[in-house]
């Protein structure tokens, strides 16, 4: 079912290069950004894109390209760390449910269904409004609502693998259940988990940006792509660049993660 199989490896290489560049820019933000993160230049407020300010400037004359690069730090960090968290929770729940079976499986999967039937974004928006989180809490929130797909995928794989001969052999040799699970069963779920994780990074970035867009996510003065859009939405008509560039970066990054996730998808 892969979308790009016919196109070969090229799209995956291209998006990996883009993501590596973004990551590098984010890590080296202090070195590569053309201006200081909060360097205010009141003489050049609301300047449209030019050779000195590629992406223009905001209402305080801060360079938008610089802020987009620093925003990449926050947005990418939230996306990646929350995906790792989702994977940790999802793999644990999915593995226990799949391996234990019976009522444990039923209970855990019903809980997963319940979590899936709560509209994710409104739930997060309320939680964020209640907790008024900093970046670390935001990572936890985004991670906590993203594990359900992972749990389902892992459970399905564990159920199909646990009846295979090598697992029976490990059990016959007297392996402890925990060891069988970690050494024999879980490695088989790796391909599915890596796909789900790559896609979860994109989803995490989208969720963070949506929360920040509604003013309950990352709070200024910290810049994230989402809160830059939040601040830009009222002046979208007069200074469209303030909204277009951060949004375009969200779009590009999520697109790259989705293409990459699709490339990892095992052929069926």
């Amino acid at each position, binding site marked *: 079912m892969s979308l790009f199989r016919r196109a070969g490896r090229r799209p995956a290489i291209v998006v990996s290069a883009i993501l590596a560049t973004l990551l590098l820019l984010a890590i080296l933000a202090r070195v590569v950004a053309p201006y200081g993160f909060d360097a205010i230049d009141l003489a050049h407020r609301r300047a449209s894109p030019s050779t000195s300010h590629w992406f223009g400037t905001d209402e305080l004359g801060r360079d938008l390209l610089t802020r987009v690069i620093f925003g990449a730090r926050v947005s990418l960090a939230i996306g990646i760390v929350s995906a790792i968290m989702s994977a940790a929770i999802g793999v644990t729940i999915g593995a226990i449910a799949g391996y234990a079976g019976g009522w444990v499986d039923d209970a855990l999967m019903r*809980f997963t269904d319940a979590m899936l039937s*709560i509209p*994710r974004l409104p739930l997060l*928006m309320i939680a964020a*409004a209640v907790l008024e989180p900093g970046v670390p809490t935001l990572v936890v929130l985004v991670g906590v609502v993203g594990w359900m797909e992972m749990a389902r995928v892992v459970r399905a794989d564990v159920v199909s693998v646990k009846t295979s001969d090598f697992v029976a052999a490990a059990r016959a040799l007297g392996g402890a259940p925990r060891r069988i699970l970690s050494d024999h069963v879980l490695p088989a779920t790796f391909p599915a988990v890596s796909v789900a994780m790559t896609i979860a990074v994109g989803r995490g970035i989208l969720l963070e940006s949506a929360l920040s867009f509604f003013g309950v996510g990352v709070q200024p003065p910290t810049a994230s792509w989402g809160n830059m859009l939040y601040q830009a939405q009222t002046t979208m008509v007069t200074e469209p660049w303030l*909204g277009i560039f951060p*949004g375009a970066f969200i779009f590009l990054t999520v697109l790259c993660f989705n293409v990459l996730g699709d490339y990892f998808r095992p052929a069926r």
Partner: protein
Amino acid sequence: MRFLVRRLAQTIPLLLIVSVLVFVLIHATPGGPLTLYLENPNVRPEDIERLKRQLGLDRPLTVQYFSWLWAFIRGDWGFSYADGRPVMQRLVERMPATLELIGTSTILGVVVALVVGVVASVRRGFDRVTTIAVVAGISLPVFWFGLVLQLVFANALGWLPSSGRSTIGVSGFGDEVLHLVLPAIVLASAQAAGWSRYLRGSMHLALAMPFTTAARARGASESRVILRHALRYALLPFVTVVLLDASIMASGAVVTESVFAWPGVGGLFTESLAKRDYTVLMAFLMCGSVVVAVLNLVADVAIHVIDPRTREAA
């Protein structure tokens, strides 16, 4: 019938779990449900104590949970902090606008997904083009897409109104349709992308099945094989996926309605969020989850009724 009963019996605990989560969330607010009063300097501490007793907030949490749940089931959803009106009334009056938007975008999304999914499964060139569009559609941040469309079609070109449901002082069907165009496209885009990708997959499966080969062998025309045989087979999982995506649709509606100032339930949600109007927020979340759970139930029952194979497995 036995299936329906068993499936219903699974939905109820699911909704109970949801209700516990929602309840815990209200009580996780730093001041509890009385936050708004705590921040008001005109409300004295002894008034807070009295309110707590009056509202039963001094009772054990489990007691509070069950009385809240029972009230919710009876339709007593409390009063909005913002304007003191019953929460249910506020939600109900916003329903028509939301149903109009979600209905239109679901139809739009399904039609686009059907055309794209079917054609992409049989035409390679078209498949390549739509593949790019599909991944782009899935990756689009909804709110940004909305803002950009507003910028292009409302502000730059002036073809369409940028927000609202109708122009003040202008009435008429045409005006309302024009207002619906942009939000419906935004809300439908991501859904149509995912759905068409899914349909394309099941069409590929269907076209590889022996029954399509058999139909071809009998001399059925290619369009008949695709539309009457393969599509019919692929349609069932497709309908399920559309119903199962109700939860994503609800999230999308919140964002879209806010960007386009659409006067629906999603817009009410973001307004209430800004005012920390928790009674409205909780009712929204409960109702949203109930609707999603019911649609999931409908999807399962529909498959069970239409597809005899699932009955044997059950």
